């Protein structure tokens, strides 16, 4: 199935957890937050969060700004 991560479409195996996906995407363990389909998903629930086909995932962190 396909999901969109930070604007890029990616094919992932059905039933993959959000935690695995994030681990694959960044090594950062702190200062990172995730929204799935426009809702924040708390870090504690990443392992249990099962992705659905077509999900839109945003992984954000803090950068210089403002």
């Amino acid at each position, binding site marked *: 199935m396909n999901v969109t991560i930070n604007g890029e479409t990616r094919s992932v195996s059905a039933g993959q957890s959000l935690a695995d996906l994030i681990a694959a995407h960044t090594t950062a363990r702190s200062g990172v*937050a995730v929204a799935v389909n426009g809702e924040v998903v708390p870090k504690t629930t990443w392992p249990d969060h099962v992705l659905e086909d077509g999900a839109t995932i945003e992984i954000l962190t803090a950068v210089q*700004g403002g």
Partner: protein
Amino acid sequence: MTDSFKIGDRSYDSRLIMGTGGAPSLEILREALINSGTQLTTVAMRRVAAGTRGSILDLLAELKIDVLPNTAGCLTAGDAVLTARLAREALGTSWVKLEVIADEHTLLPDPIELVDAARTLVDDGFTVLPYTNDDPVLARKLEDVGCAAVMPLGAPIGSGLGVRNPHNIELMVAAAGVPVILDAGIGSASDAALAMELGCSGVLLASAVTRSQQPGLMAAAMRDAVAAGYACRAAGRIPVRRFALASSPSRDESPAF
């Protein structure tokens, strides 16, 4: 003069809030942050790039400077609210510099979306510091929905035009029950001093320091300018007179001492 000022439940000694945007390198930013004496600084939330190390956060942790995430670039209330919530999750702070801009050309705030987002975030437990235009009416609305401060622009972001309408800032300060922090437009030390003389509780700036030719030195200049402007207002300046008043005794009057 270093009496602290309070925002929400915190109090700070430094009335200069320096943003981290625009610095050519982390090393230069580091020097500027130290020289500025700031205790609170802004960061933006952006998509993590593969291998991002989040080094800005490490720097702020090392310098023991509080982090104030902003919602820079958000064009709607909904977008800003989500960004604020992601920042809270990522950084563990419920403070947010709320920016909802109308377009990416002027970067001016959208007054209607701004109040909408501020109301939602306050209700959600955030300490909201909104970046607003210099309209005293909008400032009151933001205070009424529970913002912890109001942060009017002096001029467009990065313009260095200073305080374009001192009269509006005075009206705002006279009416405000929360700190008024001059945000955006500062170009020079005299701009920062003037903002404080108008009664602002603090100044927030980034480009004026980070994009100057010597950020480390400019940061010190802004630190001193904010202190000078604050002390000047507190000390009670002389009235403006259209005509002269001698500072030496008249030649006939017998001297004071």
